[in-house]
């Protein structure tokens, strides 16, 4: 009986040893926690790029999609002969310079989706701090382009809140409201990136529900909820896109802007 017990123990231990050995022989990749950044007013572009490099190739998880050329655009080397991202970011989206585009791509990824790709990019402001996001922008600019991110862009020095676009920062009052605080609904819809996904009239994309006649199916309270808590109710047929719409519009608009937008959309019947 002892011989049988020993043989069984040998089979069990041998099997476990083989599995453990194989799992230890393959490349070891640990998922790191994004390191908190404390960037002072004297931060240099090189420091920003270095921090961004570490995030991009490590805990940021960017390389899971970017660089493979299948799920998302190739960022680091070349994409359809246009060079690395730093060389092409300034001409990606009309009216947005490289810095503004990259920041938008990270924090409002649904605002502009590169043709040929699915809108799968997550809003990284859910997982990264504003400092980390700016470090990423600096690193991406450095890939074939010029780094224009400075300490002034970073919240502690520049007063930017998460999700706010540098192109929309008011120089005087420090307001972070988009469209420069304007209550013109179409200006807000365009500057907020809404038309990147939603169609309104002849303008806009098809990632989210068409807003051309949104007032016919939602009352004012429903529209307000859809802006402030976009995942509270998902329109039928758009379940696969749940989670894409940024949830921080409430932080980027004044109360006057929000109500103006609600009134405008409520009137589209």
């Amino acid at each position, binding site marked *: 009986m002892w011989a049988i017990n020993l043989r069984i123990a040998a089979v*069990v231990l041998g099997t476990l040893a083989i599995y453990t050995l194989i799992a230890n022989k393959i490349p070891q990749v640990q998922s790191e926690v994004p390191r908190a950044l404390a960037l002072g007013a004297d931060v240099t572009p090189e420091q920003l790029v270095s921090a961004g490099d570490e995030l991009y190739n490590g805990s940021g998880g960017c390389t899971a999609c970017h660089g*493979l050329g299948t799920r998302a655009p190739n960022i680091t080397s070349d994409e359809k002969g246009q060079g690395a991202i730093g060389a092409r970011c300034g001409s990606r989206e009309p009216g947005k310079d490289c810095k503004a585009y990259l920041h938008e791509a990270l924090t409002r990824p649904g605002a502009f989706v590169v043709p040929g790709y699915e809108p*799968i990019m*997550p809003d990284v402001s859910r997982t990264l701090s504003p400092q980390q996001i700016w470090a990423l922008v600096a690193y991406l600019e450095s890939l074939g382009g010029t780094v224009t991110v400075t300490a002034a862009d970073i919240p502690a020095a520049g007063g930017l809140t998460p999700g706010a676009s540098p192109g929309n920062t008011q120089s005087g009052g420090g307001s972070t409201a988009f469209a420069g605080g304007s209550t013109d609904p179409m200006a807000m819809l365009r500057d907020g990136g809404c038309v990147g996904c939603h169609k309104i009239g002849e303008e806009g994309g098809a990632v989210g529900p068409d807003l051309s006649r949104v007032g016919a199916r939602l009352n004012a309270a429903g529209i307000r909820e859809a802006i402030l808590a976009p995942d509270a109710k998902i329109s039928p047929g758009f379940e696969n896109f*749940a989670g894409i719409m940024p949830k921080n519009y409430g932080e980027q608009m004044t109360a006057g802007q929000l109500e103006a937008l609600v009134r405008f959309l409520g009137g589209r019947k």
Partner: protein
Amino acid sequence: MILQAVADTLPLYRDFPIIGSRGAVWIAAELHLMFAAFVLGVPMFAVVAEAIGIFGKDQRYDRLAKEFTRLLLIAYSATAIWGAVLTFLLATLYPRFWAYLTQIFGASMWVYVSIFFFESFTLYLYYYGWDRWKVGRSKIVHWSLGILLNIWGTLVMFIADSWLTYMMTPPRDITPETATTSIKIWHAIMNHTWMPINIHRLIGNVVFGGAIVGAYASYRFLASTSDEERAHYDWMGYVGNFIAIAALIVLPFAGYWLGREIYQYDQSMGITMMGGFMSWLWVIQAFLIAVLFLAGNYYLWIGMGRIPGAERFRPYTKWLLAVLVIGAIVWGTPHTMIADSRELTAMGGSHHPFLGVLGVMSAKNTAVNLMILATFLSFLMYRRANTRPVVPWAKTGTQIQGAMFAIAAAIVLFYGIRGYFVEAIVRIGYSVYQVGAVLACIVFVTVIDVLLARGAESRGTIQWGKMPPRSQYALFILAVTFTWLMGLMGFARSGIRQHWHVWQVIPDTSPYAATPALGYAAIMISVCVLIFLALVGFIFWLGGLAEKSTFVEAKHVGH
């Protein structure tokens, strides 16, 4: 407010000596889960076996069911002990996070404990009433107790699943700022992955139960001192292996559903799982499943040695082995591995110049579907080995079965090759056709086979017990591999949360927040499997002490 105030004053974390708090919780959770799978899977096994005993009037199955229910009594204690250890560790090592969970799920925890109480007493009634309620209508009442036991067990599992799935996929309207008092419990329970995990675990428990039954039977077979005893445990090992492999074939479909829900909830989470830092995990998984297929088939092929008439099928086994080995190699080929920009540059592109072609889903889906077909064919040959059909359409029926195999294989190959020439979104749809063809083949061929077997002549009696010892070690390898695979998949499910206790709601800021690499995880899994198997071995030994068996004469016919 009082609860919140108490929670706010708790320390965030405490540490555990030597192995750290993560290691301590990992071991307790894993062992609790393994025992829970055992005590949920085996009652399913027992109640089905008892039903076959009642309605098929075969006493062997009734005895089999009772034998396993006896082991359950001890295993329940082990499950409860590890559950208590896990609860105490969570409450003391992660007090603030534990307080958060109890604020949301407190009510369901009370229900959980109540059901566990009912479940335990139903089990006592089920086991101790076995000999008292063994004939007529009272036997049906007894069997109903077995069904009730399974219902309680399933409910307990569903409740516990809601806690862990909430940690993975909390409803999207819940943010770090959301007050726990404003979260409705049913809203938290009905999260994206709750039901897919429930179904996946339900099937997984059947597989696990079958594998452990097989291991138990093989141990008792090897320790048997009489032919009668050896015959009984040989038959029990065959039944356990059959159930494990049959349920394993269905398990990937539940896995696909779970994966799809994860992607729909958060693409980045899905990508982290399949193409991110966990991508190598799936290569290991492919290797483990290849071991399961090979060991399961090997056991069947050796088992054919005790069946008169099986010699005519022996020449085919080498071709089946070839399909399994080639399939395993293709399935285990890496494709999209996480790589940084420097590694991508060194490789000269995103994919390996040669292996990248074999590592795509078209090739892998084709490989795994052909492996399933080969395994089914092995089982069919085993089933047909000692029978000679007498129905007048026997030859035509067999030809139709052969044609179905050929058509299914052709469909699998056609879509596998065509997948290389179409867009990804079209290619994904092809896997449905491949799986559909294989499932249809399995269903229709089985139906024809059952009809063919009507009144079939026997080519000789199956010589239960006439199995070489090496076949029993294959059953051990199956049980170890199933258990290890369960630990690996648990790591995948839990690890995709990365440095979050609750995904994007409660961050893990402890020193153990980083999700470890596969090497470390493998060591932890092996330690857990070793402790589990040692404890199960002890339970088996106790079971042997409790009953010095009296054996029911096996009827030695059919399967």
